[in-house]
């Protein structure tokens, strides 16, 4: 099952990329995109496993993830909007009024 391994590997790489992206990219929007990337990595893994185990529940979850990802962005946008209005910047490094 070399394909499975490959797909899974790809999925993990994507996931890690997403994580690293959230960790290092300073633009708030890019961070949100990286989070989506992580979700997509999960979707890839789910689909792969669904194929491999020949069950459907994994695929069902994929649809739920779509919904959730969309909702997440829907909430994230107003937050980022408000922040960019307040601080006139999308750089998360400047968002450190709360600390300590």
């Amino acid at each position: 099952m070399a394909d499975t391994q490959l797909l899974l590997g790809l999925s993990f790489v994507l996931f890690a990329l997403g994580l690293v992206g959230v960790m290092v990219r300073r633009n708030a929007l890019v961070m949100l995109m990286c989070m989506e990337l992580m979700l997509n990595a999960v979707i890839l893994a789910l689909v792969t496993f669904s194929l491999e185990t020949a069950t459907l529940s994994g695929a069902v979850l994929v649809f739920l993830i779509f919904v959730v990802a969309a909702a997440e962005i829907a909430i994230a946008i107003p937050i980022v909007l408000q922040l960019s209005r307040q601080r006139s910047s999308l750089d998360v490094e400047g968002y450190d009024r709360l600390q300590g």
Partner: protein
Amino acid sequence: MNLLTVIVLLPLAGFLLNGLLGRRLGRTFVSVVGCGLPVLAFLATVKAVLLLQAAGPDAALLEVAYRWASFGAQGFDVAFYFDRLTAVMTLIITGVGSLIHVYSTGYMKDDPSYARYFAYLNLFLFFMLTLVLGRSLLVCFVGWEGVGLASYLLIGFWFEDPAKAAAGKKAFITNRVGDAGFLLGLFLLYWALGTVNMDEINAAFAAPVAPAVSASLVGVLLFIGATGKSAQIPLHVWLPDAMAGPTPVSALIHAATMVTAGVYLVARLHGIYEHAPEASQVVAVIGVLTAFFAATIALVQTDIKKVLAYSTVSQLGLMFLALGVGAYGVAVFHVYTHAFFKACLFLGAGSVIHALGGEQDIRKMGGLWRKIPVTFFTFAIATAAIAGIPPLAGFFSKDEILWFALASEHGGSPILWVLGSATSLMTSFYMFRLLWLTFLTPSRMSHDTEHHVHESPLSMTGVLIVLAVLSAIGGFFELPHFLEPLLPMPAVLESLEHYEHTFVFVAVAVALLGLAAATFMYRRGLARGEALAARFPRLHRVLGGKYYIDELFEAVLYRPLHWISDRVFLGLGDRLLIDGSLHGLAALTRRASGRLSRVQTGQLQWYVAMAVVGVVGCLVWVWRHG
């Protein structure tokens, strides 16, 4: 009727009445209660003695008041025991005590705290009677500590003077050191015998099967207690200071009764000491040393009461010498004669001080015999008695002590005799020195003082006369013989059996020698004495400084104790090590708190990084250990 209990409780009633009501009811009430109850106690004692006499020579009266505490089948009773030894002590205490109470009504007449004074005095009698009447060491200990308390209160009676209050404290604490020894001995006896009743202890040691405890150890421990109460080396330091109290108190407590408690204790527990030659030896040696050194100090004292105080210490030393050589009856005999003449001396000194309006320095006296003749005559008789001039009371008892110190089979030795005789010589010398300087030499008083000198009232002189008479004739009552059923006399070394009379002459010669020397030195006043002092300045300073024992204790015990408590325990232990480390931990935690707060930078990406490290860390950990 519980006669013995009544004897003990009468003075207590006096204490309570005077203490609680005295201030409100006035002096007459206080005097009547204060003197009346001790007299009643004396009468009750006489009745008890009569009962005892009727019962036979070695009989005893026993009264159990109640059980103090019980532990299973065993326990401690509060019980009173009355045999001939107790009888003698009780008679002295109530008798001399009553006399001194009467004397006090005159002496303390003008004191604002009259009621308090009598309350304390009655309290003292209560505890003293508890001490001698108690059957068990525990009850005895109650009295033992109690008389210490009364002594503390009376020494510090004029508490406005810090020095006097301090003297009271010193007396109490020195006594406490001895009490620790007493307690240790008591514990040891209880463990070994299961009882602390003194008659049973004596019986146990006399039994064919010896108790499982070293008699010597017990003896020494109890003797430590005795050294505290009876002012023996090295715990003698409190007694001279105790003279800060009113003079009748010095007479009653620090001469006639309380200080002899140690002698009583050893005599009472002679059963132990008879089987403890080592302990007896310790007693004899300490006794004779105390006698000797106290006498040397007394030679140079200039305070009338201090001379008498060191004389007391010295005489107590002689008593212990007698105890140490097994002559228990003789020691009690000396307690008895000493009570009369020393009380007389102190009260006489009180009369002098009273007459001079508080002056105590004999260098500022002289020529008083004309002005206060009754005091002089009684004082002179008592002086002769203590010096051992026959046929006065002191002669009989002292002579026997010296004889047994030499001849007793129970540890008698020539060295003891030599030291004892030297003491006797010095006693005679310093007592006559006192007599000369106070009464006979030309007056050295200031004119003003001299003008005010007056004889004391009848309540005081009457008592002096009674005591002087007793000092004179008391020796004719053969007390050792009376006590022999209880306190057998030691056997005499065979080699000396026939020389007793020779040594009587030696003793008399010694006393007369002292008298002669004192007369030679002080007949004309201070000059010769001062010249002698100037020839031996060092010796004089050492004697005047009382061998610097107080300073030694201060430097060796008290100051180091303070230093260790303050610097080591408080500074190093509590503050630095314990609290310091705790404060250190607290500071560390606070600092850690600050550090952790700084980790919370507010940087979102740092938070994510921490989380990622966490996830990866968990995965790695599980993978490595899976």
